[in-house]
C-alpha cells in the first residue's frame, strides 16, 4: 500500500464561481468522500480557505519573519487535498480521475515517502 496526496488546484477563486457550479462541486465531492471512505482508502482530506488567508513563516538571520499571503505567488493555488491509501498508482489515478470530475479542476497525485522506521 502506498499513500498519495491528491491536491486540488484552483485557477479561479471559489468565490468567483457561480453559486450553482459551487453547489454541484460540493455535492460531488461529498459523494466522492463517502465512496473513498467505504472503499477503505480514506486517510485524511479537507478543503482549504482561499490562498489570501495564508501566512508564511520563515527564518532569516536567526529571526522569525512572518508574511501575509501564500508562499507561491501564482494564479494557481491549492484549494484542498485528499490523502488516500492505494495499492498502486493505477488505483490512485482512478481516484484522481473521479476527483478531477468532482472538483472540475486539475488534481496532482504525489506519492508519500515511506514512513521512517521507528
Amino acid at each position, binding site marked *: 500500500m502506498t499513500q498519495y496526496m491528491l491536491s486540488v488546484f484552483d485557477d479561479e477563486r471559489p468565490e468567483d464561481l457561480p453559486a450553482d457550479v459551487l453547489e454541484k462541486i460540493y455535492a460531488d465531492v461529498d459523494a466522492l468522500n463517502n465512496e473513498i471512505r467505504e472503499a477503505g482508502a480514506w486517510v485524511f482530506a479537507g478543503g482549504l480557505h482561499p490562498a489570501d488567508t495564508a501566512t508564511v513563516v520563515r527564518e532569516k538571520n536567526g529571526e522569525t519573519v512572518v508574511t501575509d499571503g501564500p508562499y507561491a505567488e501564482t494564479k494557481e493555488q491549492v484549494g484542498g487535498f485528499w490523502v488516500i491509501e492505494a495499492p*498502486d*498508482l493505477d488505483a490512485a*489515478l482512478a481516484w484522481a480521475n473521479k476527483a478531477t470530475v468532482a472538483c472540475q479542476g486539475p488534481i496532482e497525485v504525489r*506519492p508519500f515517502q515511506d514512513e521512517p522506521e521507528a
Partner: protein
Amino acid sequence: MAALESAAIDRTFREESGRAIATLIRHFGDIDLAEEAVQDAFLVATEKWPETGLPPNPGGWIVTTARNRAIDKLRRESSREERHAHAVELQAQSEPDPVEGPVSDDRLRLIFTCCHPALDTSSAVALTLRLVGGLQTPEIARAFLVPEPTMAQRLVRAKRKIKAANIPYRVPADADLPDRLGSVLTVVYLIYNEGYSASSGDALLRTDLALEALRLARLLADLMPDEPEAIGLLALLLLSESRRPARTASDGSIVLLTDQDRNRWDRTLIDEGQTLVKACLRRNRPGPFQIQAAIAAVHSDAADANGTDWGQILQLYDMLMVHAPTPVVALNRAVAVAEVDGETDALSLLDDMHLDGYHLYHATRAELLRRMGEVDAADDAYCEALALVSNEVERRFLQERRRVNSAR
C-alpha cells in the same frame, strides 16, 4: 576469432536481455536490481563464453546467473535486510518459471510499465529501448542526439518515478487495454520514426533504431495477436521499411515516394505487410495504425507512381480523420485531395489549417503552387519551409526543389 565471439555475445545479450530483465523484475520487484544483475551476468558472459562457447540455452543461462548475482547483492546489504533477503531467496528458488505464453510473458508487463501514461513520452522511449531493447545508454543518447549524462539522468528519473509512485508491474486490465496499448504502439512508432528520418547523424545507428522498433513491433504482434492495432503497427513498419533501399540516392539525398525506383523495394517485407493488412481488414476493427498500414499497402500495390490508386488512399484518409483527427493527418489527406480533385481544392484546404510552424506544411504548399505554375508564390513557400527545417538532408532537398522551381 575473439572479435567474432565478442559480436556474437553482444548480439545474444541484445536479444535476450529484455526477457531476462523482465523475468527478474517479476522475481525481485526492483528494476534497478534486475538491470544491474543482468549487466553483471553480461560481464561474466564476456569472460567465460569465449572459452566455453555460447551455452545451449543462453536466455536461461542469463536469468540463472543474474538471479544468483541479485541474491548475492541482497545478502550483502545491511544486516537489517538479511531476513528479507533470505525470504526473497527462498521464494525465488522455489517459484518455478511459469510456462512462457503470450499472457504470462514478462516482457509484456515490462513494455506496459515502461510506457505507462504517468511517464512522459521521451522517458517512455528511453526506458523501452534500455530495458526491453537492451540498448546501452550511450547508444540511446547518440540515437536521439542528446548528451549521454542527459539520457542517463532521464533514465534514472523515470525509474525513480516508477518506484516512488508505485507504478504497478502488470499488463493492464481488459477495460484499460485499448488506451494503454495505444501508448505502447505510439512509443514503438516514435522509435521507428527516429530511425526512419534521413539524418546527417550516424546512418548506421539510425538503421539500428528502425530495426529495433521493428523487432518490438513483432514482439507485440506475437504477444497480443488479438489486438488488431498491434498487427496494424507491424504491417505499417514492414511496409515503410520495404522502401528503405529506394529512399535515399547514392549521395544520401532524399528520393520522394513518387520518384523512387520501385524495383528496389523489398518484396518480402511488402508481401508480409500486405498479408497482415488483409488480415486486419477481415477483422473489421479499424484503428489508426491499421488504416495507415492500409494506405502504405495501396502505395506498395502500384507498380509505378502513376498507377497509384489515389481515390482509395483518399477514402482511407477520410477514415483516418475519424480515428485520428490531427493536423498532420489533415495535411497528408490534402496531398491525396490534390491527386484526386486537383491542386486548387487541396490549397484551399491548406489555407484553413493552422500549421504555420511546421516546415512540411509550407513544403506541401510550395509543391502544390509549383505544380500550378505559381512560381513566385511557390518560392515564398519554399523560403518559409527552409526557415523552419532543422534536418540537414531535408534542407538540401528543399533547396533543390526551390532551385528547380525558379529555373522555370
